């Protein structure tokens, strides 16, 4: 195009960028042997399947498949197993989001592997071309395949993303802005797959013979009906399906409402002391996350979860909470409360499988109302000590400096068995010097 020709007015649209089979793709990016092979990623404790590569889906590995039940199936179908490697997935996610911030506008990180962003025609004349550029850049820079859906509303961008991810003819890119056949695409899109349409809505909509995205789009003529049956949020979805943007990019998310650390024990625990060590470890981790967002918490709660199948009639979840007078991020204090709460939730002779620690009532550290005489006041001195510990751990590895209450200092064989099973763990290629990817000279 000549520089002298007038440019058509700029169009702005939303892009939904979603990494395909994100966890499996991260594993593959550093281990080319896995390319083309079926991969299943196991949950934190190697308990069940939480993610699959396309090949594993094809082979019939169901989501949530318990590892011990499917051991033979995995072997027969040559499924490659991986324990979840969150340090790797987290770093790769950050890279994708950083690239998006470089090449698009107003990136909203929606989850570890999805983001919304604004794209406009001031960089590429054609939005499909822009979407392809996003896809190719992320793939080349990180090795991760993504799908990019573009539309004038976020809901439609998500629809576009899902369509182009499923159907290979789109090659991972679909732009619905001024798309001549948008209605025939929406006609093939089931209503329950639309962003914001849950099970309850689906049942109600199906009763009124609204089964596809196109059916729902056309209810715009009867706003009163929509409002009556689906409330205002439903009306927003209908407007969005018509290409009218109502849900805007929220670039900065609210400070987190609560921090949860929860994990299955490596093997069931009966002893209160063992459980308290686990709880102390979860408290340490939660407090670390709390400090990472420069906040303090005012409520701590501990949940102990017993084996549900051991005694089907009785309760199996036991929760105790405590509201602190002054919000804090001081690990020793939180551990003290955590252990006391665990003791209150605990009953003798019970087989516990899991514990969870939750910190809520979170406020930014600099907005705390000070009660100078409270013995639990989170002092400057404590804050400095905690930051120091966090620095040591971020520099030399997690739990290098830990509190004795966690039991983490014990020798491997004396250590309690609530630590995780991770029998299929890959390397932390991007966060540990001693676990780098190896390339041979030959």
């Amino acid at each position, binding site marked *: 195009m000549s520089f002298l020709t007038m440019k058509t007015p700029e169009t702005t649209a939303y892009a939904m960028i979603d990494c395909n089979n994100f966890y499996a793709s991260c594993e593959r990016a550093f281990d080319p042997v896995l390319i083309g092979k079926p991969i299943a990623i196991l949950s934190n404790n190697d308990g069940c399947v939480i993610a699959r590569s396309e090949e594993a889906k094809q082979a019939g590995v169901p989501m949530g498949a318990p590892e011990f039940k499917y051991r033979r199936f995995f072997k027969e179908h040559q499924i490659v197993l991986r324990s979840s490697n969150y340090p790797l997935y987290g770093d790769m996610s950050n890279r994708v989001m950083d690239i998006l911030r470089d090449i698009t506008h107003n990136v909203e990180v929606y989850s570890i592997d999805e983001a919304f962003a604004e794209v406009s025609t001031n960089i590429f004349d054609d939005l499909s071309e822009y979407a392809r550029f996003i896809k190719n850049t992320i793939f080349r820079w*990180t090795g991760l395949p993504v799908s990019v859906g573009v539309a004038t509303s976020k809901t439609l961008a998500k629809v576009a993303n899902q369509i182009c991810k499923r159907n290979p003819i789109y090659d991972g890119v679909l732009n619905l802005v001024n798309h001549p056949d948008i209605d025939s695409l929406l006609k093939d899109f089931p209503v329950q797959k639309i962003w914001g349409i849950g099970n309850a809505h689906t049942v109600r909509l199906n009763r009124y013979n609204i089964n596809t995205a196109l059916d729902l789009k056309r209810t715009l003529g009867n706003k009163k009906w929509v409002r009556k049956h689906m409330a205002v949020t439903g009306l927003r979805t209908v407007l969005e399906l018509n290409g009218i943007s109502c849900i805007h990019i929220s670039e900065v998310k609210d400070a987190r409402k609560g921090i949860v650390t929860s994990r299955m024990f490596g093997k069931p625990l009966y002893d209160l002391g063992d459980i308290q060590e686990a709880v102390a470890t979860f408290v340490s981790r939660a407090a670390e996350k709390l400090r990472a967002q420069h906040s303090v918490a005012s409520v701590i709660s501990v949940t102990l979860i017993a084996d549900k199948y051991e005694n089907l009639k009785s309760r199996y979840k036991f929760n105790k909470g405590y509201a602190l007078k002054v919000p804090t991020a001081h690990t020793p204090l939180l551990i003290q409360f955590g252990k006391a709460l665990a003791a209150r939730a605990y009953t003798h002779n019970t087989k516990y499988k899991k514990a969870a620690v939750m910190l809520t009532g979170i406020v930014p550290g600099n907005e705390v109302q000070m009660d100078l005489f409270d013995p639990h006041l989170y002092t400057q001195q404590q804050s400095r000590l905690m930051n120091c510990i966090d620095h040591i751990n971020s520099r030399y590895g997690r739990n290098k400096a830990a509190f004795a209450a966690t039991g983490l200092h014990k020798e491997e064989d004396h250590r309690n068995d609530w630590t995780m099973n991770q029998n299929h763990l890959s390397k932390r290629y991007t966060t540990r010097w001693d676990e780098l990817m190896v390339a041979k000279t030959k």
Partner: protein
Amino acid sequence: MEGIKAYLGSPTVSRTGELELSGKIETGFPSPAADHLEKALSLEDLVVYRPSATFYVRAEGNAMQRAGIHDKDILIVDRSIHPKNGSIVITSVNQEPVIRRFVRRGVRVFLVSDDARHEPIAIYDDTDWIIWGVVTHVIHRYQL
């Protein structure tokens, strides 16, 4: 001595009779360098062009010694760079990551080792290969 004296100021006798230096360093005047502070040199700034596309890879073997790559060295690899003729690349041929030189001869591409004992790999249309990234620097640790 002259210079130091000038900087510290000349010694004076205080009212208590003790010798004092008038040019206060710890408590008094701001550092004359305060207005000219610059960020200290960072190795990462020097060798990492695009953080989101840069990865560290451990080399194994000595076949690329002529390129300055020794066993156990850490390579800085940028995946966003297109290889040029002669670039050292991490490439994966038949699903194994190897370090080779990217060589273009006309329209053909060869992956060449510095060690003549390893045959060059010719790339054909049906070759199963990828260029994983381009090596931009190497970190070699000497015996200490």
